[in-house]
């Protein structure tokens, strides 16, 4: 099983401190959510872990090396004149290799397309895809090389309800099958409660809590993260749900 440990991670943009003293242990094999308000430092934490930003602290990997890490940014701008199939080959080939494509490589592309239910889009040009389709292709690009550490920035933000469910289920399956560390920055806390075993909560560049999702996502922490009063209750099927009562400021009035 793969594990990722963050020890006192810090990062700056110029002189502005974005991230400080972030410490957490993340286990592979399940989905881990990274939650926090806008500009809390989620993307910065991902970029720091991926090595795109320098900073303080230590990032340790168990059962994987830096080369096994893939980061999927939020940006899904795809204007290149490439088909979906070609774009996934492209992601696979960034690991190295010549111009020729082996049967194994083509098989990996096929398998990834199938896993994310994208085979029917294989011949389509990237520029012709909808926002949700682009996001799904982006996820396929990230996972085609079978990485052991995966950081995804809002992977479901452009997907419809059905696709969200489908993709999160495919990601959960991937983590289970490969033992990979999968950290997903998500905004929908009900989605987090349903799919993610562990959660890391980030506010103003600091990790406020990390651990089992239901232990982390308490009404008190949600108030501190988002300024929202909420309750966590079980539905008729026994699943935990977050019910929003309203912003704390409004209630105080």
């Amino acid at each position, binding site marked *: 099983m793969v594990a990722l440990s963050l020890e006192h991670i810090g990062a700056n943009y110029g002189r502005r401190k974005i991230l400080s003293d972030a410490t957490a242990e993340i286990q592979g094999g399940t989905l881990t959510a990274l939650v926090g308000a806008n500009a809390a430092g989620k993307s910065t934490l991902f970029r720091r872990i991926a090595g795109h930003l320098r900073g303080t602290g230590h990032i340790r990997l168990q059962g994987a090396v830096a080369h096994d890490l893939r980061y999927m940014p939020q940006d899904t701008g*795809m204007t290149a*004149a490439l088909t979906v199939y070609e774009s996934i080959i492209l992601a696979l080939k960034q690991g190295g290799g010549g111009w020729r494509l082996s049967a194994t490589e083509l098989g990996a592309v*096929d398998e990834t397309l199938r896993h994310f239910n994208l085979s029917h889009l294989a011949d389509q040009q990237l520029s012709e895809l909808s926002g949700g389709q682009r996001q799904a292709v982006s996820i396929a690009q990230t996972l085609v090389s079978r990485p052991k550490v995966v950081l995804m920035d809002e992977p479901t933000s452009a997907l419809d309800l059905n696709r969200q469910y489908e993709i999160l289920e495919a990601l959960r399956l991937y983590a289970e099958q490969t033992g990979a560390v999968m950290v997903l920055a998500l905004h929908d806390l009900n989605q987090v409660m349903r799919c993610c075993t562990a959660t890391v909560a980030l506010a103003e560049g600091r990790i406020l809590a990390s651990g089992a999702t239901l232990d982390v996502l308490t009404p008190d922490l949600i108030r501190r993260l988002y300024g929202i009063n909420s309750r966590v209750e079980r539905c008729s099927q026994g699943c935990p749900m977050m019910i929003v009562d309203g912003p704390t400021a409004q209630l105080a009035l």
Partner: protein
Amino acid sequence: MTTMEIQTPEAASTHSYRRLVARRIAILVGLTLALVLSVAVDVSLGPARYPVWDVLQTIFAPGGAELQMRVVVWDIRMPMALLAVTVGASLSLAGAQMQTILANPLASPFTLGLSAAASFGAALAMVLGVALVPGAVALMVPINAFAMAMAASLLIFGLSTLRGVTVETIVLLGIALVFSFNAALALLQYFASEQALSAVVFWTMGSLTKATWGKVAVTAAILVVCTPLFARRAWALTAIRLGEVRATAMGVPVKRLRLEALVLVSVLAAVPVSFVGTIGFIGIVGPHVARLLLGEDQRFFLPGAMLSGSVILSATSVLSKAILPGAVLPIGIITALVGVPFFAALILTKGRKSW
């Protein structure tokens, strides 16, 4: 039965991709054949009307041909025809990689100010007799043109390394360079003698008539050096077109690659421009034709851009001789006059968004 059901979609998408690759290879072969045909026609055409058969005989068995014909075919027409091929390939490749690394469909040696800088350098030699490289008086015009084009691209290169400079900034800076050098050129023309003025105007029109085997060899050598360097980075260059953020996330060292490509592109653009003058159109159209025909996988786009640039310039060379029998029109004029409507038609009829 269950296995078959799972394998069918897998096989379908890979099969379809193999068909796409086969189609692209066929297009590259087609472009190569078109180039060979165009070069053959280009060599057989000229102010002196020789039968095609005699021209072919002079090419393949020069020993048996008349001296005059041998000189015309081997020393005038062949260098011209082949220079069209190497210059077309160089300018188109330079444009293709500029568009790739700057993520801008308008980027080309022409729009980034390299051609304008070269024209200004050439005019300095023709109007004021200033040699930017001392001691090279005989080759003052091409060397001045090359020096100014390299200076312009090094300026762009230098500024692009500064912190906070984006691709948009580089493109805007290139456009500013075009206007600056054009203004400086106009100033030189204003003070130029009548003879110098006509030389400058002719140079800026772009022409292959001063082709020599030496120029063919130099431009070919640059292509031989630069092409493998781009080819080795084919996957990374293709990834850059997914955007800087995504390419970086895929592990592509975007900034370093952009600088390396800018250096190669500068040489690829500056040398041909210094030999043939301003042929602005090829650097934009060649890559767009290749993109429309072959997509942006650099394994096909790279040779495709070179071939389409060569075919367009070679075909234009043919037209420049055929339009007015007995005269060779400046090729820069023909590329724009004939090429622009063709290009517009291609973009409007293809109906596929490529940017």
